[in-house]
């Protein structure tokens, strides 16, 4: 094929034209978001009773101390593979600037071991049998930022949280219900409990 400079020149100009069009599009969309739905467009951030921003209702958090030990007064999130790359060892995870899954296959021995250990730890922590630890409690999500736990995982945590906070189990169960999203139309998505908003609501009971 002969070298045809004209099509390259036309191609170059076309790239520039479409780049400008898409930049205008991006700013237009941002304008619509910022003017029409600023809360959503700015990340669905949530604040505590003192008005401080404590995170986003869409982004999961971990409820552990700096050593990675579960804080008993909070509902616990799933394990997370999103760790802060600037730290040598990140015990907290849910680092929302490095979203990631473990990407481990089902035969991976490290994963099998960590899942086995975690199942036993959770069963002991919640005082249930290992069989009653649901699948999502011991597996890492895809983003490492999953803000949700399954209703089953929430259910086995109610007793502990109620005891730690001197609340009745019914009070805690009511809050769990309030922070549960059901399947759309009965079959779109899954039933989930938002741990972030649930724990925030618990703190605000005080």
């Amino acid at each position, binding site marked *: 094929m002969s070298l*045809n400079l004209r*099509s*390259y*020149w*036309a191609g*170059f100009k*076309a*790239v*520039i034209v*479409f*780049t400008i069009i*898409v930049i205008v*599009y*991006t700013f237009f*969309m*941002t304008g*619509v*978001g910022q003017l*029409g*739905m600023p809360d*959503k*467009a*700015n990340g*669905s951030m949530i604040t505590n009773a003192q008005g401080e*921003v404590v*995170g986003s209702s*869409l*982004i999961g*958090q*971990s409820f552990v101390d700096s050593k990675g030990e579960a804080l008993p007064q*909070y509902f616990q999130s799933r394990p997370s593979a*999103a760790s802060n790359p600037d730290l040598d060892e990140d015990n907290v995870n*849910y680092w*929302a600037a*490095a*979203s*990631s*899954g*473990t*990407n*481990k*296959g*089902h*035969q*991976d021995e490290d*994963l099998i071991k960590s*899942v086995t250990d975690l199942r036993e730890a959770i069963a002991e922590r919640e005082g249930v049998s290992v069989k009653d630890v649901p*699948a999502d409690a011991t597996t890492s*999500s*895809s*983003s*490492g*930022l999953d803000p*949700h*736990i399954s209703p089953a995982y929430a259910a086995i945590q109610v007793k502990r949280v109620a005891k730690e906070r001197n609340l009745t189990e019914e009070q805690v169960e009511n809050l769990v219900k309030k922070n549960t999203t059901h399947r*759309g139309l009965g*079959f*779109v*998505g899954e039933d989930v409990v938002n741990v972030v908003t649930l*724990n925030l609501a618990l703190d605000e009971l005080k």
Partner: protein
Amino acid sequence: MVYIYAFLAFALIALILAAIYKPLGDYMYNVFTSDKDLFFEKWIYKIIGVDSKKGQTWKAYLRGVLGFSLMSVLFLYLLQRIQHWLPFNMGFDNVPGPLAFNTAASFVTNTNWQSYSPDVTLGYTVQFAGLAVQNFVSAAVGIAVAIALVRGFAWRKSETIGNFWVDLTRATMRLLMPIAIVMGIILIALGVTQNFADWIHVTTIAGNEQTIMQGPVASQEVIKELGTNGGGFFNANSSHPYENPNMWTNLIEILLMLCIPVALTRTTGRMVGNIKQGYALLGAMVVLFGISFLCVVTAESFSSDPITNLTGGSMEGKENRFGIVWSGLFGTTSTSTSTGAVNSMHDSYTALGGMMYMLNMMLGEVSPGGVGAGLYGILVMAIVTVFIAGLMVGRTPEYLGKKIGPREMKMASLYFLVMPITVVAGVALSFAVPFARQSIFDTSLNNSGNHGFSEVVYAFTSAANNNGSAFAGITADTPWLDTMLGLAVLLGRFLPIALVIALAGSLAKQDIVPETSGTMKTDNRLFVFLLVFVIFIISALTFFPTLALGPLAEGLEGLVA
């Protein structure tokens, strides 16, 4: 129980697509057959310097595609190399050369393979002024090429096959842009972020530190799905809650990926004057898609792989809000189109579930395939099908009124050889060449044994098919994989496109053969069956040995253990 949910999910998607099939297909028909230019299109043609009324021969059309794409690669490469001096770079440095080449090649070819990790590599400007631009125009190029091939069937005794610049502009401005604006705004309303803010540092409820990335996500998310591109704004792609916050955004994103490839079969039917021909192509797509989805749901629900056995469900690498069914539907959609977006980590699927995703791509991504690419892919397979059927009954094969002669068959055969050769050669070299092998084992693999092998197979399959999804544990940012995968995406994109455009040229030159009683019908169920059979046989024969070493062996290991 899980099958009821799976069936309802499938039915809902099918129902909505059925409702938009006719309006969208007819709209695209009008876009690509109208001889009127809109006022802003006239400006664009004036700036680019092309005569929109002038048809192009297949060679001129191909030169347009290649000229535009080469300039796109150079521009996107350059943009990444000067990132440090651009606004909104979020403190990131210039992207290193090999990585910038890989990313540029990947986005221009509609692949959106991501060797880079967006969270630690790219600021906002490269994303919206570089990647998002290619999300629009690489999709438009795919549609243009598909339309050119359909014109080859529909036009008679024509030296020309349309005008590339017109097809490119119309696909971008009349089709992708309006849908992106409307659906993008809906995504924002459902919680997808859209801002230019700095990252937010917070002290969390439990008193820990958390940094939350922001950005103009919705504007890029919508076109990433609509144009079957798939490159995530964030590392975790569509599983990141800011890209895909809930079940409704998930549903919308699945529909966005499917709507154009599916409706293009209607456009094809209209252009060749028989909408039943479009139904037949669609029928084959639906059968392949449905079977694959069923297999994924089965594997993920009833696998005996160790982790699933241990935990009681395959939730590793899946988000709770999507669960098995809606992760499976998204993954099947993403790998059956050329999107490659993920809302769950394919690397952590059960052996056989992950294999189905590979197989979707190995079929050549025709169920329904990427925007445009899926259509020309299945049209080529239809040509192969009539040829095989013609051999059996001893007649000259015809398809859509055009004779399939030796020249057409050569191009169709070369077409379906490009992808498997690229994949198998890439995988073989990665394990055979000593320094490559070392780089793979020392740096790239995240898993060992058969699953590690699968990671490499998946990478090359995804690249050669311009999909872009990954068994994402693999570290692809090594000199070997950056270069080889970069070459694979370019070969996997432009060789088939060149063959398709040449095919369009040779078909357009022919007159239309009148249908006789001896003509094989290509708009009935028998043909759908044959087409599915041919697509399956060709890839099954090619890839069975490869799959046997990877996911099949891994799955058997799970059964034994």
